[in-house]
């Protein structure tokens, strides 16, 4: 088994897309792996993540993309995407 990360969702997002489950553990080295793994569990969720979320990787905010590395044991928290003025 490869390195794993903790995946977390907001309550509203979890209620809408993951049956209310807010925390998952998946194998991943890149955010691409996280998105793929979540999409396998909940078909269609991958597109939702890409389109609708910003991601905090160990608290650091990023636009949700495929290319970001995720550290072993790290926290990947998907939150609603932000824009400013």
């Amino acid at each position, binding site marked *: 088994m490869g390195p794993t990360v903790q995946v977390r969702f907001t309550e*509203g997002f979890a209620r809408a897309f993951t049956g209310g489950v807010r925390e998952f553990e998946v194998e991943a080295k890149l955010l691409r792996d996280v998105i793929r793994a979540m999409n396998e569990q909940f078909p269609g969720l991958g597109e939702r993540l890409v389109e609708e979320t910003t991601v905090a990787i160990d*608290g650091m*905010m990023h636009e949700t993309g495929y290319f970001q590395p995720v550290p072993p044991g790290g926290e990947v928290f998907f939150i*609603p995407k932000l824009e400013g003025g």
Partner: protein
Amino acid sequence: MSAEAKEFKWVGTRPVRPDGVPKVTGRAQYGADYRLPGELIGKVLRSPHAHARIRSIDTSKAEALPGVKAVITSADLPDHDFAYIGPERVAQNFWHITRNVMAREKVLYEGHSVAAVAAASAAVAEEAVSLIEVDYEVLPHVIDVDEAMKPDAPLLFEDMVTRGVEPTPDTASNISKRLEFGIGDLDAGFAKADHIVEESFKTAAVHQGYIETHACMARFDADGHGEVWSSSQGHFVVRAMTAKLLGISPGNIRATALEIGGGFGGKTIVYLEPLAAALSRKCSQPVRMQMTREEVFKATGPTSGASMTVKIGVTNDGKITAADATFNFQAGAFPGSPVMNACMCAFAPYDIENARTIGYDVVCNRPKAAAYRAPGSPISAFGVESVLDMLAKKVAMDPVAFRLKNAARQGTQMVYGPKLSHDGYVETLEALMDHPDYKKPIGPNQGRGVASGFWFNGGGESSATVHVNDDGTIIVGSGSVDVGGSRASMALMAAETFGVDYDNVRCIVSDTASVGYTHVTGGSRVTFATGIAVHQACNKVIDDLRQRAAMIWDVDVDAVEWRDGAAHPAGANVGDFEPLTIGELAAKRGLTGGPIGAAGTTNAGAQAPGFSSQFCDIEVDPETGHVQILRFIAAQDVGRAIHPSYVEGQIQGGVVQGIGWALNEEYIYDDKGRLENAGFLDYRVPVASDLPMIDAVLVEVPNPSHPYGVKGVGEVNICPPMAAIANAIDGAVGTRMCELPMSPPRLLAAMDANGADGDD
């Protein structure tokens, strides 16, 4: 606090701004200044009604008027499917957007665009507009957010049901969406509290108030390719939205950013560009359009007005145990207020174990809300920071010390989910505490108010190019519109990276055909994200220059190092070579491979949030209710100030806009839903004579994820002023103001109701 970064030669210095000479000599081209041969003037017919069904539009008389070249209605723009596309906070629904740009079935606010004309002169265009006949069925309207939420309110959309509610409602509503964030156990948290304060607040819709009105030029050729020149915060977004609204490929439009006379978020979307482009496409002549100030007030911006309830509990020793807030935001005529940001930012400066925020996005017969400086956060900060002041008084703590005791730090759990990634808030509070003016006594009818604010700051996609001229001077091109000094900050970072003089670097804003995609200048993202793209492009060029020096010296590239604007042998064993400056290498460019240049692109992440803490001293005139600002201190974590003068300017500007929001600015509607104060004489923004010098304190806690430590600086400064002033008023006259603006008549009425007349 010193902003002078001693370890850098250029970063942290204050050179003369590169856009200064064209602006002060009047040569700078703003949106309305651009001219093309054969241009026409475009004008818009706007709705006189707040809410009406359009039965018919007859443009025949306008079309027959000599000099009129084109008339368009919504029939000239393709309709779009009803679908929310993209991220939820800014979920774009082009069914809505095309109807905001030009009304279809109904007009939803006074000033709503109904038709547009292009003619040989402004006078002819205005006459043609007056000849367009629209048959309206006037409908009941609703302006206030709380009224719009009632079950019997007039509906803007008869089929809109509230999203985010389970089960899905079976009746239509003006509430577009409900959302909720939460952590911990609210009931348990409030049970631990010794003091609980619950209060309701209202804020007025306020306009971004940019001095330059919206303006653009569009030209479409017979081959279907077009160009757009406009004043915007992002010409790539202008291109994308104009193309989508016209039903063409973005590749068929080239967009150029002209100078911008203020945007503050309100120019991140389009109003005129698709209309000018559609008119030009119809008549094959360039079309120039510019809004009047009245049109700007009635048909663009503003940010939401809101109502909210905030409840917070604390222990006797000043520890917050629980916090709960509900925010109702006016979205204007179409869904999409910044209420989500309000929910996420409301408690972000604080370490609170048990917290919840609930938000409602509500449509009403006002212009569609647009982004405005830290959208949403200033509104929630007004309520939260007012309640914190009330609690600090209850536990008899200094308001800064109270905030310090509860301050969020790196690792603090945020109500919106993840843990806070960066420090910075505590340092802004300590800066206030250490400020000599914080200890100064205040006089009769005077009060001191403290408040703080949080904003996420942005990252995202940016592009830049770097080219080396014949003599070693450098051209930096970026896709970021220069709203707040980005040409200077990019040039400073490039000069620092190359090790050359700042005067040898020139930075321009490139058009959409000359540089890669770059997201808007907004969200306090440009110095961070575009700065990373510039740094990346500079380092690619430096690597290339090292290769060329190695070629000239016949050594391996690893034997060449770059410093102080020149290639140097990496060690004594490399050989006895004199350094090759960037100018000397540029002179041999043909010999070593040709032109020297590179592009940098990024989707920048790991941006750090911004914190601002402020205090002000005010004096209330007990006879008139007028509030005079005596002193305003604004401490902000800026990461590292690349050009401190611009950063101070951002802080001063944000505070001034906050003062206007606090004391004077509001939309006043008559009983027919018509705006009564659509001009700067009646919609009063602060002027210099209203204000003291704003003391901007630059707190530098560098962001390790940026090569020069940058954090966004443009927005968070507008979050604290409204509550800081309300808290100061309470300190001065013992009257808690819970509604904005705290204008003289409103404050006088509150003081009368409260029996307060200040100190004798």
